[in-house]
């Protein structure tokens, strides 16, 4: 990314030296992981461009929005309702945390043995290297896992954090609690942006975000074909970009990509040869630029056909039902979000049922469960998933890993051996 953004980065208060290092690390990795792929769809060009401009053009757009008095709200979890932020004239962005950065700074306030995602967002903030973070007027946390919940108290020392209480179960009273949280959030967002949410603005926001989810679902459905029309890595990238790109433009670009993929499918073309072993990955989110395990999988002779993750299907699975009144719209929003099958819930049987269906629908030969190190909810729930997979006779591999590359060799052996089993 060229230097003409330097002024903008400086004005955001970034630590330019550390930020430069970050920017220099990304292109070579991106090249190795993404640009060396063969048979990539042409329409990936847009997404390559977006990554290339990750700290440039998109940040500029956010700054222009802010200049006009607009607000930017950052979130760490797919439970934060984007519709509400948009309806109040704000822009909602997912803060990424997929890279080991500012570890030394983060470890001054956090224990060493903690999930790398948490360490990463703290590091990004403390080392001042993320222009998204620095663009946020408000950051929204949640009470999902204990690590995040407590880390938000610390983060609040550096940036205002509003914490939404996500329940632990999905009973009637949990639904009520969550609805109230969503209503409170709507109030807070309006206060932050100074713009009132109206029936019209919320209805429009619901339609727009539903449109984004529909486009992503369309893409996902195309991946049921053999040969797979697009790699799992490219799909993951799109799912990661979904969290911070302009909604209308992103939706249009995903639909364009789908048009191209439909043509490829009817011509019998794919990103991988027909009959390539197909796997589904499931587990903790893979925040951009965490492409570690997908890269290992797809360079070991398999293709990923679905991500049962928050950077994946859980993000676009269900839609918010449209409704007439503001109140019922908020109810529908609360209901849609509470349908997310995150491992912080107990029980989380929805995830298991869903996985079983996905294996059938996507003609997957096996499932790879990926957990970030020190993530208790998913590491423990892996047992439920494994048990079910064994019962159904579905080949299953469990991986626990962080953002470092130390274990890449061993992981490769395990993944290759798993794929040998699928042949």
């Amino acid at each position, binding site marked *: 990314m060229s230097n003409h953004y330097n002024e903008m980065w400086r004005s955001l208060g970034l630590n330019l030296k550390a930020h430069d290092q970050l920017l220099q690390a990304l292109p070579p990795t991106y090249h190795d992981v993404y640009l060396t792929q063969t048979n990539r769809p042409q329409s990936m060009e847009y997404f390559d461009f977006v990554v290339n401009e990750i700290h440039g053009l998109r940040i500029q757009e956010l700054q222009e929005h802010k200049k006009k008095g607009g607000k930017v709200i950052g979130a760490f979890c797919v439970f934060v309702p984007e519709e509400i932020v948009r309806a109040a004239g704000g822009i909602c962005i997912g803060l990424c945390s997929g890279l080991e950065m500012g570890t030394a700074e983060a470890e001054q306030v956090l224990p060493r043995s903690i999930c790398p995602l948490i360490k990463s967002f703290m590091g990004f903030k403390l080392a001042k290297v993320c222009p998204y973070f620095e663009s946020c007027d408000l950051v929204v946390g949640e009470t999902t896992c204990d690590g995040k919940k407590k880390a938000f108290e610390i983060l609040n020392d550096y940036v205002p954090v509003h914490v939404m209480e996500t329940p632990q179960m999905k009973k009637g009273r949990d639904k009520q609690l969550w609805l109230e949280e969503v209503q409170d959030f709507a109030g807070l967002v309006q206060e932050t942006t100074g713009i009132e949410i109206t029936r019209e603005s919320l209805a429009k926001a619901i339609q727009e975000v539903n449109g984004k989810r529909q486009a992503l679902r369309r893409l996902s459905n195309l991946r049921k074909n053999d040969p797979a029309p697009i790699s799992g890595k490219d799909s993951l990238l799109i799912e990661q970009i979904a969290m911070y790109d302009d909604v209308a433009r992103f939706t249009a670009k995903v639909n364009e990509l789908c048009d191209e993929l439909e043509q490829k499918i009817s011509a019998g073309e794919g990103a991988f040869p027909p009959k390539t072993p197909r796997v589904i990955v499931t587990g903790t989110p893979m925040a951009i630029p965490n492409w570690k395990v997908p890269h290992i999988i797809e360079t070991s*002779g398999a293709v990923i056909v679905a991500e049962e993750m928050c950077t994946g299907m859980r993000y676009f699975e269900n839609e918010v039902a449209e409704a007439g009144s503001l109140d019922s719209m908020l109810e529908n929003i609360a209901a849609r979000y509470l349908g997310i099958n995150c491992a912080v819930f107990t029980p989380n049987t929805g995830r298991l049922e869903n996985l079983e269906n996905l294996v059938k629908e996507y003609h997957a030969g096996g499932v790879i469960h990926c957990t970030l190190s020190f993530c208790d909810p998913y590491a423990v729930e892996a047992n439920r998933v494994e048990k079910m997979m064994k019962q159904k006779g579905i*080949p299953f591999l469990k991986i626990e890993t962080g953002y470092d590359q*130390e*274990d890449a*060799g*061993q992981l490769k*052996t*395990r993944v*290759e*051996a798993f794929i*040998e*089993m699928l042949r």
Partner: protein
Amino acid sequence: MYAGIDIGSRTIGMVAMSAGQIKQFRLEDTGFEPTDTAQKILDGTYSRIVATGYGRHSAKAEFADDIITEIKAHALGAAWIFPGVRTVLDIGGQDTKVISLNEHGAVIDFLMNDRCSAGTGKFLEIMSTALGYNSVSEFGQEALTGEGTIKISNMCTVFAESEAVTLLHRGAPKKDIALALHASVVERTVGMLQRAGFKTPLVFTGGVAKNRCINSLLATKLGVDVLVPEEPQLVGALGAALAAAKDGFTA
């Protein structure tokens, strides 16, 4: 003739086969240039070479026709020597693997230890040096004569080493410490086998399979026969050779 080469962290094994028979085999230290050493060992003419082991990818880039993982190689090799094998335990220089096979000899599951040397050949090597033995085989031999009076409580190589040295300074009999260290490896291994829900026949491969103390402790602890091939360090190479020989094989 078909060749299989297993490029491990400590040793490189080679097996060449023709008409279903082993024609040549060799075992060398890996040295600093694994791919070069491998090529030197492969001094015949082979119609197909399959590589396995951690150096397999470099081998593929340089000379091998194909690659398979150590997991598949050990399964193929063990099933050829002991038809009907249901579990392969492989303890090499740097890692431990438990491989489950179905009744047709296909791999259905596997476990590998995490990124640490506890319970591997490296662990035994370090402990043998720490206690002042000249070789790992002497260490294993002595341990057989030890008495089970001591328990090593640390699994981590670094801590276990200082624990062993402390015991030595306190005057504990060396062979008892040796036995305790072997027992700690076995305990870890048994845990892994149990997690994998191991079935018999159980075949033990890799360098550590030559250690008689580990073998006998393992058999006692598990209460089953532990089958050890004549050349446990060549099972991976054998598996690779079998893969090379297999018609229409692709990896």
